[in-house]
């Protein structure tokens, strides 16, 4: 399914976390800057998302996504999808127009650019939130796992290109992977949500096992790093 999404208000608290504020209150000037950037971002962004639900089976090399040539390898994704008989592949973006806006601000005003950058990361996560709600409504008799980002844990980032192909994401939402498996437009997300008939643990994998654990600025925040890419 492919959908253009309208974004409402952006979660500025989350943006401030990305900016390193933790639980500190920003001053008046930064609050004003956030408001201004939010307005411009909502005007510029063209949020898009595409998702598809596939049956999954455990194969020799990893988890096979039926009807595609995708094989999900590694322990992290196996744990994530434990007990699931379906997986939804999701790709969301706020479009290349945001890349251009960031480039423009970089020339005009670096501080606005930094704030805009964090807000647009928040925006693409909010597109995913909306997608998650739609998936929940569509598969109401299933329990849903959290969004497992491609490249998270030991699921290789190099899966990106095949993942996008399975969703036809290039054609449907205009998202591409570079040769080094980075997503373009920059503010885009790819992730996997497991669907299970029986309750799944919603708890994220702890930060303890993450290779970023000593330096991560999101560690200890409510939502952790989630499937954030940028």
């Amino acid at each position, binding site marked *: 399914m492919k959908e253009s999404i309208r974004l409402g208000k952006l979660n500025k608290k989350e943006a401030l976390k990305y900016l390193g504020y933790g639980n500190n209150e920003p001053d008046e000037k930064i609050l004003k800057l956030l408001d201004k950037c939010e307005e411009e971002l909502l005007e510029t962004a063209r949020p898009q998302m595409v998702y598809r639900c596939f049956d999954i089976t455990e194969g020799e090399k990893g988890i096979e996504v039926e009807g595609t040539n995708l094989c999900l390898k590694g322990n992290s994704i196996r744990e994530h999808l434990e007990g699931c008989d379906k997986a939804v592949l999701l790709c969301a973006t706020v479009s*290349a127009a945001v890349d251009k806006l960031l480039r423009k601000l970089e020339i005009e005003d670096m*501080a606005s650019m*930094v704030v805009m950058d964090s807000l647009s990361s928040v925006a693409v996560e909010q597109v995913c939130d909306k997608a998650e709600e739609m998936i929940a409504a569509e598969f109401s008799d299933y329990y849903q796992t959290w969004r497992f980002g491609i*490249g998270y844990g030991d699921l290789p980032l190099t899966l990106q290109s095949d993942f996008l*192909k399975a969703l036809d994401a*290039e054609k449907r939402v205009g998202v591409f992977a570079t040769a080094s498996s980075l997503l*373009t437009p920059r503010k885009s997300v790819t992730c996997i949500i497991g669907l299970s008939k029986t309750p799944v643990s919603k708890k994220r994998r702890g930060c303890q096992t993450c290779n970023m654990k*000593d330096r991560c600025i999101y560690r200890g925040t409510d939502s952790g790093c989630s499937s954030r890419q940028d």
Partner: protein
Amino acid sequence: MNNKFRELLKNEYVILDGAMGTMLQAAGMKMGETPEVLSITNPQLLTDIHSQYIKAGSQVVYANTFGANAYKLEGCGYSLEDIVEASIANARRASDENPLPDGSRALVALDIGPIGQLMEPTGTLSFEEAYEMYAQIVKAGKSADLIVFETMTDLLEVKAGVLAAKENSDLPVMVTMTFEMNNRTFTGVSVPSMAITLSGLGVDALGVNCSLGPKELEPVVKTLSEWTKLPIVLKPNAGLPDPKTNMYNLSPKDFAESVKELLVYGIKAFGGCCGTNPDFIRELSSMLKENGNPEVVHGTVGAAVCSPTQAVAISEPRIIGERINPTGKKLFKEALINNDIDYILNQALEQVKAGADILDVNVGLPGIDEKEMMVNVIKALQGVVDVPLQIDSTIPEVLEAALRIYNGKPIVNSVNGEENSLNTVLPLVKKYGAAVVGLTLDENGIPKKAEERFAIAKKIMDRAVAIGIPKEDVFIDCLTLTASAEQEAVMETLHALNRVKNELGLKTVLGVSNISFGLPNRELVNHIFLAMALNNGLDLPIINPNNEAMTGTVRAYKLLANYDRNSVDFIKAYANMPKVKKIVVDDNVSQQPGAAGVSDGASGGVPAGSAEALMHAVLNGLKTEGAQCTEELLKSMDSMDIVNEILIPALDRIGADFESGKIFLPQLILSAGVAQAAFQVIKKHMVNNNSAPVSKDKIVIATVKGDVHDIGKNIVKVLLENYGYDVIDLGKDVEYQAVVDAVKEHNAKLVGLSALMTTTLVSMENTIKLIHENNLDCKIMVGGAVLTPEYAKQIHADFYAKDAKESVDIAKRVLG
């Protein structure tokens, strides 16, 4: 020459085929597989599909080559050439085995889709790489009857493809792009921009395919019919997909009925995209047979130029901004010499904000490679501004290089009545589908009399038309002479302009500020002359849009001449006009209302223009105040003292506050922005006084090969520049060798490398390796989200910087 498709287009209508992917999936192909391989592994399946379409009425079938490019076929086990040849052969077999009712054979199209990578600057694919990839496909597909580009979303990628097609074959070319509900492609291309750019490049037919059903595509088709005279192609999806089942919602009959509603716009070629099959083509064919296809005159919009996102019709006066030009500007010249593209981008953004509709781009300066600079500047400009550009150079090679990579339809500035100019410039204008400024001068110089200039204008027009440039794409400049030297010539210019406009029916362009040279109160003379010219029919004034009197003259004229209906634009520009005249501190310092530039009087009770006030401005992120204070201080204080006694200590304090968690990243950057503005003022002051610029050692920085996440690197750059280092920024996705070359060229003692993702760390390692292999005497610092101090050590970096602040500490340590 294979002209069969061109002949076919003379018919009342042309029937194309329907979806290929849908048919292959129905035959069991998995999502994500490479469909082109089937052309070799299962040729019968492909021939069957083509045959079904021909039997349903298709006069053109698309070979199974949509993704047959070097990037998408990588690792598939077959060569591109083998796949393309087999795919065309399968279609040809179907065509031969199934003659059309009139005995003719269905044509076979070489079908070409997007490469599968986003183009620079959002992605990493360059124009040149895209061109090479397309050229390879075109050469492999010579046995087809025509070349089709479809499902395209990036206009520059299309341009690379069309040029590759035209330069490597003489087959007809058809292009369809894919538009979303907002009538733009994913990369933001507008329908008018597509129409005028591709009409200029000389394709045979153009239109739209995929993404939506016929009904949803109505606005796209309608706009297209207004903006192009070329045959229009429509290949919609079978409606919209059902969210639950992924099935499309239109039946073949409904599909044909919806298409019928669009016949009023004058469509020539019809087919289907995702979700359609031979039944859809059959219904389409019988609908057209029954209903007929009315002939509709379309393409009524006249002269226009564009960027991919913005088309500007020259149906009313439009301002061409003249500021991107080094003539008489010390800072601009220095920026060109130092390859400071950001300076030029700033000039562009400022002019657009002030009201420019088009920007003239001139980067000619003795001692620099103008061709390379022009290409770099145009690429960079198109990455940040939406307005169309005017390419300004006297060198044909520079013009051609720029025309090639320009995204959209530009203006060429300029051709003149000299034989040599006509013979070299006009063919370029024709080939790349640009508009052109014609100067009314020739071998004998600028004629004194209006009628002689008129005669040259006519000659330029005739010569342009003779080689196939539409008359509407010729804009004539009757040339402004200086009133103080040749007073009687002023009216000659205006008479010539008037005649060119009214008798030849051409658009006119004029640079106006020359008029007042040598006179006092130049502004007054300039804007009155501009008003006179506008009233004589000037369409494209070339002015400094930052000069309020000039831009205001154009706005007021447009209001009075009834272009600006209900005074909407005029009121928008002046409704909130400040009562006091704004003090322009430095035309390079951008101001962010509500953000950095708020002059809120919060100078903390310290005397304006004092050292304390500047310190206060930096600490509190007050950009405008910071620049003003610096200006004041320069009257009584040495510039180096300002830097060393005020700016650096202020930055140190901010840095320490950041480190200790008292302030956060946005505040750090705000302060850095103030310091940057202050440095600009100092630099301008020094350049104007011919003193040596303030700068310490050189530092080369780059985001490594394969990585496009450069925000961190850019923050580092601002901070390093704040401390007076001369930063050579190589950008993102930088080749290993380019880093080595830059270190050598600038004799840099410190290199900063950034990488964000695990997949690009290896590029960082390789870059470091190459630096060491070249025995360069420089230290290397690295940073980026996934880096650790341990990893930095392991790849033999000298320093690990955890943030931008630390990179400054390292620079101080290494360079002092």
